[in-house]
């Protein structure tokens, strides 16, 4: 263990895994409860358009990608509410359009973009100190928002109509959740890439929801799974020739399969049967 952490790039990667693991698993709790899984995939793929703009213009692609990701998330929520269009329809349109924009820009401006491969498939080992500061900043912002509005977020996820009738600022809080998702996904893209990032904001919450009927336990389990998956994947990739992003997602997928099998076993052992 000490041998692995002797490398400064591994220290940075471990810190990134912890930050992103915490971020994704916190958001994953709400993504699963509010059924926003497809939005996660949509934001990440749309962000490719923003990343491409950054690459061809020389602006930091993480910055342009973040603007795209947050813009996509918030406008999806806005259009689906105001325009009476299903959220999945809006995401489906953004998803393909963002990818198309990315492909068109990268193909048109021929050049060598070494960052592109890392952003598509993730490269946690190349995380810089600047990236870590950005991740930490996003974590603080997201946690601040979640802690501040936790009860309201829970009420909106459970029964939005009732929350509206109760006079809660539902649109403001929901937009805050979507903006948090956009930022979280963009930060996590550095870890696992555009293609795999949706798994990070879906699987921890899905596992926890499968195993718990108490939201406090569900949130705690989501955090443990998210952290465990991120750190575990990093270490596996050190010992085996597997990219860290793929290793993280495969660990999470394995844990999900395990949760699917374990739950009925636990219920059988406890003699529990739902009516």
């Amino acid at each position, binding site marked *: 263990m000490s041998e692995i952490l002797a490398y400064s790039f591994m220290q940075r990667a471990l810190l990134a895994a912890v930050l992103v693991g915490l971020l994704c698993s916190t958001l994953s709790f709400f993504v699963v*409860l509010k*059924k926003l899984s497809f939005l996660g995939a949509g934001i990440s793929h749309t962000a490719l358009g923003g990343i491409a703009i950054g690459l061809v213009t020389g602006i930091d692609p993480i910055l342009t990608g973040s603007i795209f990701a947050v813009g996509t998330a918030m406008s999806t929520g806005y259009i689906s509410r105001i325009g*009476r269009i299903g959220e999945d329809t809006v995401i489906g349109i953004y998803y393909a359009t963002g990818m198309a924009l990315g492909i068109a820009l990268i193909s048109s401006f021929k050049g060598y973009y070494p960052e592109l491969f890392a952003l598509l498939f993730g490269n946690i080992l190349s995380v810089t100190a600047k990236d870590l500061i950005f991740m930490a900043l996003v974590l603080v912002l997201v946690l601040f928002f979640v802690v*501040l*509005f936790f*009860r*309201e977020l*829970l*009420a909106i*996820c*459970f*029964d*939005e*109509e*009732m*929350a*509206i*009738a*109760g*006079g*809660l*600022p539902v649109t403001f809080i929901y937009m805050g959740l979507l903006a948090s998702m956009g930022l979280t996904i963009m930060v996590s893209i550095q870890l696992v890439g555009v293609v795999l990032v949706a798994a990070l904001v879906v699987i921890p919450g899905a596992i926890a*929801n499968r195993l*718990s*009927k*108490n*939201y406090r*336990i*569900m949130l705690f389990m989501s955090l443990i799974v998210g952290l465990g998956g991120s750190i575990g994947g990093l270490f596996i990739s050190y010992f085996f020739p597997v990219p860290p992003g793929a290793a993280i997602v495969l660990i999470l997928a394995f844990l999900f399969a395990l949760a699917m099998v374990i739950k009925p076993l636990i219920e059988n052992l406890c003699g529990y049967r*739902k*009516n």
Partner: protein
Amino acid sequence: MEKIVNADKLSVLLGGKRVLEEISFSTLSGQLTGIIGPNGAGKTTLLKAMLGLVKLETGELTVLGVSNSSLKDVRSRIGYMPQLQSFEKRFPLSAADVVATGLLSPKTLLRRQPDSKDRIREALRSVSMESFAQLPFQDLSGGEQQRVLLARSIVRKPELLLLDEPNSGLDFPSQRLFMELLTRLKIEENLAIILVSHDIVSVASFADQLVCINRSMHIHGQPAHVLQSTHLDEAYRCQFDLLSGSAGKGGCDN
């Protein structure tokens, strides 16, 4: 008895389509009003208008002494129970957690309520669900879930309770139990209750007055009067066999 709701020729336009036209009725405290009508009659829109969630095209609506332009201000004095489909059934909340969501309002943002536990316990007690407080909501039967949702609607001690199809999906004994519970709350709390339902027979047995709408006003008054009126057939555009609670010869065209 105090007048809690007064609707005077109110009309509502949604998406260019008139969904309510010249609806007039009033509700007093301690009175249970059943709003009946076929699918798409505008029953839910009428409830939403009382919550200030829908803008009126014409007419006057006064709720708890406040006119339609300021209805947002009285939401904290109104209990609302949306249709059963509105909430997520496999949600990891206990019965007490569900009731706690009813305490949230703009006034509670960023604030803790010191007496919330007592209020939750009291609301659950009033619907005979106190012993279920810590059980997962998703493990409760449909009838038990309905009573917990009712506790959520009354946890803020409202003066007016609006219920949207609370009996849908419940078997007959659960429906009866629920209606008996509403009747008890109405008397004990002097609560004005407005209940939207498809089930004319069930509502008529417990309501003090019925309001029958199908976009426009068809008839309102005491249940016996409404049930015997030919206007009921007009509203549903079919003949009603009230003994079976179903459409009679000719069927319904909606």
